[in-house]
């Protein structure tokens, strides 16, 4: 591959270009809109796969980095510092994209889930042009979040995902869609506000940098992630530059807590999950595929990227608390999933439970646990995407997803039911499917430091079997109600993503090295930091 291809920009911007192109289409060409959306999504995925093929974990992602000055706001404060040789004093945000072992798996996940969601949107009939345009816009946001290397850019991409989601829920959702969309926006808006505050604190402290040039010193506050990391490893950097807030313990803790809340809403961590239930239940299934499959992982990614790498001491100190939250998530979600009567809500609570395992992996503070957290994120993304693909397919045919009304579908829809069963088995952590690997790694990692939380987490896996079987068997097994006797089996465009996702789940379950090899050096910086702490 030629080295000068801005591959990351391609990945991020192709969906945006697609969205713009869709706007030019006439309104009634819904089919064309669908096809072109799929093509653009696929194109982006193609670049992501290319990146995957080309990426060498040992060298990291330095060669893909792209950077351009984007926003530079003069602060006009240099007058007082002129005598110290300061010629410019500004606030700068860059268009700065980068990739590493942590973001690449999630980028691939985004591509895969987006394509499957686009394919799985066959039953969306209303205002297709707008739907697909929003879907593409959403993709740009997601890719951007995972690839941005600048706090400001990250924030903008993060926000960019809210808008399409809001409309996708609010326009194409079920009966309670408006309320769900509002709730979504309120929670995530609050989260964003908190995140912005945390980022501003970060920019004002870690983001400060003094550049000596021929003309004099240029003082910059920037959201540049590399600068933050550099400042972090060199505690005197900010102090030497002068003028910046010092990043002391209290401030670090407040930033950490703010980040935990901000990303905790997205993950979602226990008391902050109310919004996602509604989204799961009300949004159209393909959108939930993306929501449960990718958007929740943005929270995980944010936690690792900002709370983890920038505040390792705080992460270390808060590990027991995170583990406790993880355990609560796992058990709380699982127990509630056991009593739901609506399949989508079962899946919603199951997501909470599974994301708890991610938290457990993070709390382990070990490489294997981190890898488990990331693997679990990807795997849960694929599994929940598959489950909601099936939900969409069932909902279109039966008109309901209530467990009490369904039954025996394995007779009339053997293929779909088989996929549902496989997805369910993957969700309950069956070895040979991807769900198991993530859970295993997270547990292996956590067990070394915290034994009882792990045992409680394992208990959650048992409950997973209970709620998955309870709901899946209620749908697929048992006597078939007469009104469902004549249902038509999934059409090709539905079956294709189902098979593809199942294949991915099996592939990752059987040969997880495909993904874990990527992460090999991804956590190196964080682990080094944690180790020096442990040593000193």
């Amino acid at each position: 591959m030629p080295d000068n291809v801005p591959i990351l920009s391609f990945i991020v911007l192709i969906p945006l270009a697609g969205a713009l192109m869709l706007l030019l289409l006439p309104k009634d060409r819904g089919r064309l809109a669908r096809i072109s959306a799929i093509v653009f999504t696929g194109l982006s995925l193609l670049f992501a796969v290319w990146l995957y093929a080309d990426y060498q974990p040992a060298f990291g992602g330095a060669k893909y980095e792209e950077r351009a000055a984007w926003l530079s706001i003069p602060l006009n404060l240099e007058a007082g510092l002129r005598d110290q040789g300061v010629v410019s004093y500004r606030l700068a945000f860059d268009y700065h994209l980068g990739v590493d072992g942590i973001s690449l798996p999630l980028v691939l996940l985004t591509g895969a889930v987006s394509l499957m969601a686009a394919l799985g949107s066959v039953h969306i009939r209303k205002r297709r042009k707008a739907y697909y345009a929003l879907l593409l816009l959403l993709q740009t946001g997601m890719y951007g979040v995972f690839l941005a290397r600048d706090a400001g850019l990250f924030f903008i991409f993060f926000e960019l995902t809210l808008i399409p989601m809001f409309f996708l829920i609010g326009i194409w959702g079920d009966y309670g869609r408006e309320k769900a969309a509002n709730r979504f926006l309120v929670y995530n808006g609050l989260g964003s506000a908190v995140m912005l505050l945390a980022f501003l604190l970060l920019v004002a402290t870690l983001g400060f940098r003094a550049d000596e040039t021929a003309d004099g010193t240029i003082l910059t506050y920037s959201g540049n992630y590399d600068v933050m990391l550099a400042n972090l490893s060199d505690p005197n950097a900010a102090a030497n530059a002068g003028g910046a807030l010092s990043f002391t313990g209290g401030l670090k803790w407040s930033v950490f807590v703010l980040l935990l809340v901000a990303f905790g809403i997205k993950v979602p961590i226990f008391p902050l999950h109310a919004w996602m239930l509604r989204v799961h239940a009300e949004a159209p299934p393909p959108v939930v595929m993306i929501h449960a499959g990718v958007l929740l992982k943005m929270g995980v990614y944010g936690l690792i990227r900002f709370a983890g790498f920038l505040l390792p001491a705080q992460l270390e100190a808060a590990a027991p608390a995170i583990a406790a939250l993880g355990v609560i998530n796992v058990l709380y979600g699982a127990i509630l999933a056991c009593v739901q009567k609506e399949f989508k809500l079962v899946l919603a609570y199951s997501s909470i439970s599974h994301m708890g395992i991610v938290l457990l992996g993070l709390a382990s503070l070990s490489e294997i646990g981190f890898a488990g957290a990331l693997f679990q994120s990807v795997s849960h993304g694929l599994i929940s995407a598959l489950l909601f693909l099936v939900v969409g397919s069932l909902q279109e045919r039966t008109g309901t997803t209530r467990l009490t009304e369904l039954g025996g579908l394995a007779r009339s829809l053997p293929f779909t039911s088989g996929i549902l069963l496989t997805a369910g088995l993957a969700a309950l952590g069956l070895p040979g499917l991807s769900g198991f690997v993530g859970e295993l790694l997270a547990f292996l990692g956590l067990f070394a430091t915290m034994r009882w939380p792990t045992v409680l987490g394992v208990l959650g896996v048992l409950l997973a079997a209970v709620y998955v079987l309870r709901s899946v068997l209620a749908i697929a097994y048992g006597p078939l109600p007469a009104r469902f006797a004549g249902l038509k089996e999934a059409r090709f465009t539905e079956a294709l993503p189902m098979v593809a996702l199942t294949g991915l789940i099996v592939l990752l379950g059987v040969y997880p090295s495909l993904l874990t090899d990527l992460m090999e050096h991804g956590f190196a910086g964080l682990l080094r930091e944690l180790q020096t702490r442990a040593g000193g």
Partner: protein
Amino acid sequence: MRTVFSQYAWLAPLFPLAAFVVLTELNRSLKRTGAFIAIVASLASLALSLLIAFERIGTGAEDYSGGFAWLTIGSVTLSAGFEVTNLTALMLVIVSLVAFLVNLYSLGYMRDDERKSVFYAYLSLFACSMLGLVLADNLLLLYIGWELVGVCSFLLIGFWFHKPEARAAAKKAFIVTRVGDLGLLIAILLLFRYMPGHALDFVSLHNVFDSQAGVISTSITTAIALLLFLGAVGKSGQFPLHVWLPDAMEGPTPVSALIHAATMVAAGVFLVARTYDIFEASAVALDTVAYIGAFTALLAATAALKQNDIKRVLAYSTVSQLGYMMLALGSGSWTAAVFHLFTHAFFKALLFLGAGNVIHALHTQDLRQMGGLGRRMKTTAWTFGAGVLALSGVPPLAGFWSKDAVLAAAFERHPLLFAAGIVTACFTALYMARLFILAFWGRPRGDAALAARAKEAPAVMTAPLLVLAALSVAAGFVQTPFGSWLGAWLSGEAIPEQAESVPVMAASAAAGLLGLYLGWLLYGKGAPKGGGAGQTRPWPWLVRLIEREYYLNEAYGYLFVKPLQGLGRALRLFDGAVVGGAGRLAAGAVQALGRLNSRLLSGQLQTYGLAAVIAAVVLMLAIAGRRF
């Protein structure tokens, strides 16, 4: 001695896997040939297993292992590999042989089922996982196989998915065994934590626990052993997790023969045998295994006495016999356990397949509807009879020798264990006699027309019976108190002749014969003509207790299911009221803010104007004020 075929042992699970893949991919187009693909695959596995086993017969065959790194994270490598020892070779033969026979048998049994190819796909997947479990060279891989056989069991129990009972049974089987699986998983976590170099393979386990005592503290060892045993308890249907196995009889009968009698349920025994070094390092764990095993054996044997479903009787019998194996393991003789596993696989598979023939002929599983089949189904009756005698421990059939080995071990361990074993042996013979008499003797009690049409099953279904019957009769001679060839082969150590076991043998044989005699007395000779064998009996509460299987299902319902549901409901209220309430509060606050705003933004232009003027004045004042 160099081994040739052992190097290719990894192929054994791949044949059925290939069959599974082909069958699932080409499901629709393989309506007829699907079964043959599966049978050929299982035959290939069988051939390979036999080659491996025969190659290893003789002394000094080295264990062979090979593998690759499955997952590397940082300094930790989880590997996947296989290991061939004499134990695994034996297990390979048992599994692939029974699997092949059952595959063959199902050709007849499932002939008219429209989802036959799905059935064969599941069977193949099961064979693959089970062989993988057996061959695994480390605990993690074993766990993977362990879970996969559990899923296959689940799928096959629920094969007739439209029956609500099958659905419930499948769910129950999966969840109850999962409880045990978690024990195994936690044991693996513990081992991963405490083993030097995070090693999980059996060779390292053997080295650490056998020779390097003190590397891992006793309490941890005990914990690991107990957790491993919890896994075995779940899989092998030991008390208190045995409740799923009788219900699992909702699955097709060949499945019961393969999975729930011969192979998968024995995996627990295999697990304990494979990690026996850990158990030997902890006396507490061994005692636990022994007493749980003995208790289960006794409990299940009594429960089998009053079951009316032919398969449930056999299921409880399986539970009971597995208890025997655990008893042997706990008594310190893992070779006896494996020996019993070996013989039990044959005669219990035989019994199930025979029962399958009966069910196939009569379309009922209720013993009260049967009777007099002996004349109509000669082959079935004779082979079944051989199985009954073998299971009852009548010398010199296979069951006698293996049971004797178990009892001898128990005798050395503790008289109480021995007593439990002897009583169980008596009960075993009793309920088997009852079963045989009710099914094959006397006159038909059920639908007369159906009984009249009942005829012997086709050859494809009787041939496996004959093979298994022959094995049930003869397989015991591989290890007798006078020449313990199998034990020596398995453990690699010469086992001295056990002269003191003659009284044990006598007691065991006497117990078996006594049980059979009692059975004949109660159900054969003394049976009332009406078939309702004795309405008034002593201790009606005890009978009821046994009939209801000791109310364990109800107890679990009240102990676990109800509280979980209650907790779930409580949490649902909490989630709706508190967490959701907080959400509503947040949303409400924002909306209230919005309403306040919209009241301000009333559309009154002049109000806006006034606000602008006020703001401008305030701004001016603020700017002007800064100068002072």
